[in-house]
């Protein structure tokens, strides 16, 4: 895994996501999920591109079901975008393109 992507647990959600000083991209992933496997290298590539400016986190959905349910995340993978402690923009889900992640992050920074 790229050093620019960190995995968190539900207990860290407030501190790592909501209280983050920089914008955050959060990836809910699962096992036995081909689109999640496909997303991983793209997510890391975009994380490397925005190093230091945007925080890229991933969270294992099976291990953090309550948080996923609270956030109404019902598909893997789902990407959520946060700025100033609030979710912004549209979520990305399913077969996600690298260019879509990049565009959404750029829009969040603009």
């Amino acid at each position, binding site marked *: 895994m790229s050093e620019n992507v960190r995995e968190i647990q539900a207990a860290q959600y407030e501190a790592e996501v909501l209280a983050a000083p920089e914008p955050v991209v959060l990836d809910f992933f699962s096992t036995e999920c*081909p689109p999640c496997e496909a997303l991983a290298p793209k997510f890391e590539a975009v994380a490397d591109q925005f190093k230091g400016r945007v925080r890229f986190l991933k969270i294992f959905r*099976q291990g953090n079901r309550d948080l996923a349910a609270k956030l*109404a995340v019902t598909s893997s993978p789902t990407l959520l975008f946060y700025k100033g402690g609030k979710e912004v923009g549209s979520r990305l*889900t399913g077969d996600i393109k690298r*260019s879509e992640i990049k565009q959404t992050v750029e829009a969040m920074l603009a």
Partner: protein
Amino acid sequence: MAEQFDLVVVGAGPAGLTAAIYGARARLRTIVLDEGMPGGQVKTTHKVSNYPGFPEDVKGAELAGLFAKQAERFGARIARAVEITKMDLASREKSFVLDEDEEIRGRAVIVATGAKPRALGIPGEDTFRGRGISYCATCDGAYFEGKDIHVIGGGNSAVEESLFLTQFARSVTIIHQFDEFQAEPATAKEALENPKIKVMWSHEPRAFLGETALQKLRVENLKAKQTSRVGSPPAPPAADHRGRVWEPSEGSHIIDLDTDGVFVFVGMVPRTELLKGVVPLDRWGCVETDDSMQTSVPGLFVAGDIRAKKFRQITTAVADGTIAALAAQKYLREVR
């Protein structure tokens, strides 16, 4: 400096990977490009029962892995999770830019980008995609342990994936527009005999409703609609072949069903975005070829589900991939 290949295959599903096996074994420098991981639609199919050589069934993801391994064994390179950001397919020497960064060139190209799940195109679908609506049972099925879910569709995918979902869900209600399944009879029979599966025949989804997450699925009883239009008595309640009856709410052919989640399997649409403006597409967006998979552009072949044809199976995709690779070899010999 662009890396040079004899054969560039776009799409690592069964058609593309078979083309790569044949290409690599013919000693063509072969690369397969895919936006995700190899396997195409097969990798999200929980179980494959009709692919020869696997008498005990095979998991889709396992079969996908075996296709990829075989292609790589003969030297084909599989570029995973790459996006084509620019390309030229019309010239004799074809070129691609990957992720706005790496350039590759190919003397022959086989496009085997397959098909993706069709969306229903009804209100609420975009809002609740990933918030209760799913198109991938292997990805999301396990989260519906003990839940009451709905499946939309009645073809092979819908019925097979419904059976898979019964491992987790408390009940699976299939919403199907016709009064019988289009799935293979063996699969249909298994579903109808499964006590967790209920079927609402002659119903169509009309909307997805909810606040932050999906809560209700609005459906329409097509038979009730027909009869109420002509003023005859209301249609009898929909019942499956075992006599399980579903009662519509009184006086209305539109019903809002409580649901914990909806899986949509209503067929596929060809992924031909790359070929728009390059080759003519038919009214369904598929590409016409001759019987050697050649398109109207020299050196450009297509294989698998994006091709205009009658049947789309793993076996037919594999056959297309074989033919396209053999035809590409012949083309490369002749233009040399």
